[in-house]
């Protein structure tokens, strides 16, 4: 059975303390909470799995149940990194090439998004000029960019990367500019009186003050980028989890699709947590 919430299980807490466990009420309460955070999700998964299995056995249902999924797709579950050449590779490889596209597009979006966001946050004129345009552009569904992107780049790979870029950049721009505009007047006054200028202003005042907003933008953006990549790859082909799902559909391998979808979800969760961790490590904590 798989754990959807792996970060809540730390090996230390599972093994810990045999000595004075029985009497300390705080420890007992903590252990009970811990048991609940682990046990309840497992029970929920088990329950949903049971419903799903039952549903799949009803007459006329083509959706494979969990048992059939695991048996038929065992190769993909057990060997994520096999490589039989061409596009016939394990899910690990498929995910990695999707991640590579997302990584490239997202990194570009983060760089330009933060830079443009700071510009808009610092210049009222630039903000008034560009904000309405960005507000329109950001509502465009990612895939609507794909044909234009394909026409521009003529190749699948950069087109997919561009779709990620254009999807991820808006929340970064918008959150960064708001964060920069909301730098408290107090800090700006300190910077002016004590002549904190240039790179020192950037690293010691602007970035720390705006970082909570910037990281919020980055976190929304990584989610959107991961949402967009599957759809983009379905259309562009090649190696990648999106195209693998599409390919499995074309060859009627529903269990493979289910396994892929679960993997996509888990990678999405990991990406989200990774950015949240970055925010915790590098972001400003205001006490």
């Amino acid at each position, binding site marked *: 059975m798989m754990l959807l919430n792996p970060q809540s299980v730390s090996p230390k807490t599972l093994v810990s303390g045999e000595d004075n466990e029985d009497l300390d009420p705080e420890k007992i309460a903590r252990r009970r909470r811990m048991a609940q955070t682990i046990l309840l999700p497992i029970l929920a998964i088990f329950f949903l799995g049971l419903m799903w299995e039952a549903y799949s056995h009803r007459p006329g249902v083509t959706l494979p149940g969990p048992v059939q999924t695991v048996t038929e797709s065992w190769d993909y579950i057990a060997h994520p990194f096999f490589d039989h050449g061409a596009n016939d590779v394990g899910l690990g490889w498929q995910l990695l090439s999707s991640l590579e596209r997302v990584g490239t597009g997202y990194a570009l979006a983060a760089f330009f998004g933060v830079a443009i966001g700071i510009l808009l946050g610092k210049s009222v004129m630039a903000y008034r000029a560009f904000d309405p345009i960005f507000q329109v552009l950001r509502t465009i569904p990612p895939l609507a960019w794909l044909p234009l992107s394909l026409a521009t780049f003529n190749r699948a790979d950069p087109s997919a990367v561009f779709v990620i870029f254009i999807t991820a950049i808006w929340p970064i721009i918008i959150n960064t500019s708001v964060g920069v505009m909301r730098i408290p007047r*107090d*800090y700006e*006054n*300190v910077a*002016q*009186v*004590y*002549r*904190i*200028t240039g790179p*020192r202003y950037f690293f*010691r*005042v602007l970035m*720390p003050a705006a970082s909570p907003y910037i990281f919020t933008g980055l976190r929304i953006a990584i989610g959107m980028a991961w949402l967009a990549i599957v759809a983009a790859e379905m259309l562009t082909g090649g190696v990648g989890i999106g195209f693998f799902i599409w390919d499995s559909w074309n060859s009627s391998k529903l269990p493979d699709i289910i396994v892929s979808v679960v993997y996509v979800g888990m990678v999405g969760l990991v990406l989200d947590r990774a950015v949240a961790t970055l925010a915790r490590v590098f972001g*400003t*904590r*205001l*006490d």
Partner: protein
Amino acid sequence: MESSSNFVSMRGIHQIFGGGKSRYYALENVDLDIAQGEFVSIIGHSGCGKSTLLNILAGLTSPTLGSVSVNGREVTQPGLDRAVVFQSHSLLPWMTVVDNVRIGIDSVHPEWTVARRHEEAMRFVEMVHLGAHAKKKPGELSGGMKQRVGIARAFAVDPAVLLMDEPFGALDALTRGSMQDELMTIWENSRKTVMMITHDVDEAIFLSDRIVLMSNGPRAGIAEMVSVTIPRPRNREELIESSEYIELRKRLMHYLIETGHGLKAAA
């Protein structure tokens, strides 16, 4: 020295905020000179424009009309010759105490090594007795400690003029008293030119050479100036017994009560 009586010079200051219906005539025709080494307090009711006057001298606000100069140089923007102790302490919460103090030194002496700047910052952190807390973040400090960091930061840049905007206004009465004593000691040792905004009459008398009384806004201005000739070093206990103190206090309180709508007279 002839120039020393107008080391700080504010001439014909008018300040009008906004335009149209939201236009507010905050200050009207303010003239104020401060001598080098003089401690001047500005006292008045809330909204009388005393903070505006300080911001103008700091260079954070440009006056609608009038000219400001410090040591003969015209004030057009904020600068390290006019350090500010902000009312809300305004420490950068992501930096330690010593780094907050260092930030101004970094601007004054970029040519120094980091170690030397750090050492200099520590000197001022210790001056306000926060040596043991140098590596803490402002969030871990009490209100009084934060304001001491603000004072250390201001003194650390060795400014020509020190501007203090109700520095102890947010503190409880006991802490405020000990902070005033501490500021007094530091000031006696440095004899900086100081302009302090306050609404605490006792604080003004205890610390100042001269007290400027401001009339209420709109169109606020200087109503009266009072010299405090009580000899230094001043001792709080002796002070409250002295007839000059009692007279002064009475006079200031009368002024505030007469002009006031009652609310914010001294504690």
